[in-house]
């Protein structure tokens, strides 16, 4: 992690446990903070990582201990890119109900994707539906 060449690349194979990925996420956030990313932007990236990884573990791998979640990242002072892949059957993001519509307001689930889309500059789902790629690009100030 001492290289000054960007992007820095980080990857990790995470077990399918909802308690086992927070240290990795914190490592990424700490590094972005060192790269001078602002606290309010890091809040959104934290949310996107939390929701995408927990979705992969919970809905993708169904917490199967024989399956893993792959996370690949690229970090630089103005751009953060991450790909999260699970070993599940995939899903169609278009079929996720709109959590903001009045009829779905009281549904306990289905908010992660909405939050990811809000906080990240771009979000793409693979054709198989088991990988999500997200990017945050800082505007020039």
């Amino acid at each position, binding site marked *: 992690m001492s290289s000054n060449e960007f992007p820095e690349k980080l990857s990790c194979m995470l077990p399918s446990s909802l308690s086992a990925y*927070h240290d990795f996420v914190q490592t990424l956030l700490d590094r972005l903070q060192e790269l001078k990313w602002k606290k309010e932007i890091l809040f959104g990236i934290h*949310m996107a990582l939390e929701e995408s990884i927990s979705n992969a573990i919970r809905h993708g791998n169904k917490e199967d201990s024989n399956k893993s979640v792959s996370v690949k990242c690229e970090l630089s002072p103005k751009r953060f890119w991450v790909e999260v892949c699970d070993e599940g059957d995939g899903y169609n993001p278009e079929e996720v109900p709109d959590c*903001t519509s009045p009829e779905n*307001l*009281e549904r*306990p*689930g289905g*908010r992660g994707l909405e*939050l990811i889309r809000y906080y990240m500059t771009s979000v793409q789902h693979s054709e198989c539906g088991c990988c999500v790629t997200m990017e945050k690009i800082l505007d020039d100030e």
Partner: protein
Amino acid sequence: MGNQRRIEVNDSASVSVVRFLDQKIIDPESIQELGQELFDLVEREDRKKIVLNFGSVEFLSSAALGKLITFEKKAKRNDSQLVLSNISPEIFQVFAITNLDKLFTIKDTEADALAIL
């Protein structure tokens, strides 16, 4: 784990003021415990006026939001009034993005919340 409290409850006149003891509400086991402690307030203890003070909360996941939504339903079913307060701008934005600012009654401060109960 099982004995660690997730909330602290103080009674102010007829109102129960709840403060969260975790700064980050993301761990599934903690969220489960938090949910149970909240549910007990209305289902076992029959509290009718509740303020959830978010002053100490720095981050929460959508799973935590889900638990709050279930709590809101249980409170409504029990004819309990629920007001949220002291939500940081970042957390309030999470409520706004997901339209939950329309589901919950939210006030800036605990005093503002107490004033409408």
